[in-house]
């Protein structure tokens, strides 16, 4: 459970999980949404995968990530977002789905 809390404590990782709630996405598609380097993004994916919150589906060189959260973990994600379970600054998303259509 510690790994889950660690994974959910970072706003960038929470944003990744929120993106994946709509459906599986490629690593590149997810990374394109955030203003962080690829190694940093890979580290975030590794933390989420270690916590068992996402699973990677490798086909050739392409990696697709699927959400793999229990109901409790999804509820924790919601609580973390609302009550600000936050240990570090958020990485500003470049094209957040929540900001679509806003300037």
């Amino acid at each position, binding site marked *: 459970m510690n790994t889950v809390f660690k994974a959910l404590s970072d706003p960038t990782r929470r944003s990744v999980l929120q993106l994946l709630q709509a459906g*599986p996405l490629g690593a590149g598609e997810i990374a394109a949404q955030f203003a962080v380097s690829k190694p940093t993004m890979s580290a975030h994916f590794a933390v989420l995968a270690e916590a068992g919150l996402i699973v990677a589906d490798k086909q050739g060189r392409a990696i697709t990530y*699927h959400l793999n959260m*229990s109901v*409790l973990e999804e509820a924790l994600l919601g609580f973390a977002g609302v009550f600000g379970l936050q240990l570090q600054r958020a990485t500003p998303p470049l094209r957040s789905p929540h900001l679509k259509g806003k300037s």
Partner: protein
Amino acid sequence: MNLTHHDRTQLLRALLAAGILLLTAGVSKIASPAFLSADGAARLLGIAMGALVVMYANQAPKILAPLASRCSAAHTQALRRFTGWALVLGGLGYMAAWLLAPVDQAATLALALLGTAFALVLLRLLHAIVH
């Protein structure tokens, strides 16, 4: 015998479920009728059953088998999430009914709530298969 982490988790969860049921049945047997009425024992067992439903439904999004090639990955994921949430809420409703409703209506109400959750899951599954 080499058990994977997943196997160990499954085994522990099954043992916990069995333990909860045995403990509830034991407590009901030992405590009634001196410390626990028949109604109280029925409520206790109902709450324990609801807790088991919640415990297993919580894991449903992770452990449900994929629907082969019937659905896209996004639809399968949405179905898994819906199943988990519906059954967890149904289980919580089942527990709440046994905890709060008048005892003569608790069973009916609890089954209605959980049955509604199952029906919603079945409808969503049928919808996913047809479309």
